[in-house]
């Protein structure tokens, strides 16, 4: 599974960071950083939740 963030859409609401802080981090510069772009299958449920909960629908998953 590969995480793709559309940074034109992302507004750093940081919902994803709350759900999966080991994968997504909004830093002091208020930009989102993806810490792990290819998490394992065990993380799929959490990543799916990030996709669902993103207010900007900026996150998608390939594979």
């Amino acid at each position, binding site marked *: 599974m590969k995480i793709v963030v559309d940074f034109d859409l992302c507004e750093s*609401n940081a*919902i994803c*960071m709350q759900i999966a802080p080991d994968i997504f981090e*909004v830093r002091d510069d208020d930009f989102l950083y993806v810490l792990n772009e290819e998490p394992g299958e065990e993380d799929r449920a959490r990543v799916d939740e990030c996709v*669902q*909960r993103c*207010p900007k*629908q900026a996150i998608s998953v390939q594979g």
Partner: protein
Amino acid sequence: MTRRSITIVGASLAGIRAAESLRRQDFDGAITLIGDELHAPYDRPPLSKQFLAGDWETDRLTLTQPDKLDDLDLDLRLGVRAASFDLDSRRLGLADLEDQSSEELVVDGLLIATGARCRTLGGAEGLDGVFVLRSLDDSLAIRAAFDAGPARVVIVGAGFIGAEVAATARTQGLDVTMIESLPQPLSRVLGDEMGGVCADLHREHGVDLRTGVGVEAIEGDGHVERVRLNDGSMIEADVVVVGIGVIPNTEWLEGSGLTIDNGVVCDATCLAAPGVTAAGDVACWPNRRFGEVMRVEHWDNAVAQGAHAARRLLVEDDEAEPFIPVPWFWSDQYDRKIQMAGRIGLDDEMHIATGSLAERRFAAIYGRAGRLVGVLGFNRPRHVMRYRMLIEEGVSFEDAIAAEI
């Protein structure tokens, strides 16, 4: 819990996320999703921002891509309104808004997500140029009115919707007057000091903001011409947008056997009656985390509660979990992102954790009875989310003040 079928009434955010949640839980029974608009499920936040500004078109509002919608294998009934429900017989009455036909379904599981509608000002009905903003069609109508180049736009109500519409109109170069009956915008939610920060934001962007004054009448001959205020003043207006809150859509449930009181009354797990749950703007439930009965009108809550209420229909009573979110929302106005998490009371202790009100980039945290209960941020998304996590952890206000964020 084995269910044959689940009917979801309301095809907006809570309803579609509920349907997706059911399939994710491997529910393979029939799902009927009923919506009273003709549009496929769409996202509302851009309706007061990018879509209203004309920067986005309808394709950007899609909540679920067409192929994913197909995968859900829904019986999707659009342009259909739920007209009645009877808990004992589980009969759901439907009215087709296009051909005026009616129909009755006997439902197994029922999830109510009929949302809310805008309050209106009495007496302004029938005047052209007077709008509310809730639906895609509302936004399209206001957009067309803005495109026509009105000499003056009057916004009634400086809540989040009114404020966002004002910001969009100003960004388009329109003259805007915003009227708020409270002493400051949002002062009932945020208090006068933070309300004042919002007021300054709008005044600096050229909004003629009038606070502490109410609307007496919206007048015109066929088309709106002026707004008369209760301090005797009068404002000429070509376009009026009324944003004075919403009313939960529960009329169709009168006599159903369900309890209605500021929404569909649910237990702590979002269950309104056996096999009946509710989610989103229409649902009222006791949030045990805060010891408070809540009805939450936020985007994020519709997503989370839709999923929760869906799962609730699939589990036995003794397996059901309470729904205990820390409410969170955002509002984009000009270049500011305002976010709030938790519950802010006017008597709470407040501490500016970072930044300053003067630069309008800050996070303020709120404490009650020694606990961290809320956070308000202006352009501080990271802090808001970190403090939201601390609220979930139940930390003391003292520890929240000391926390490294």
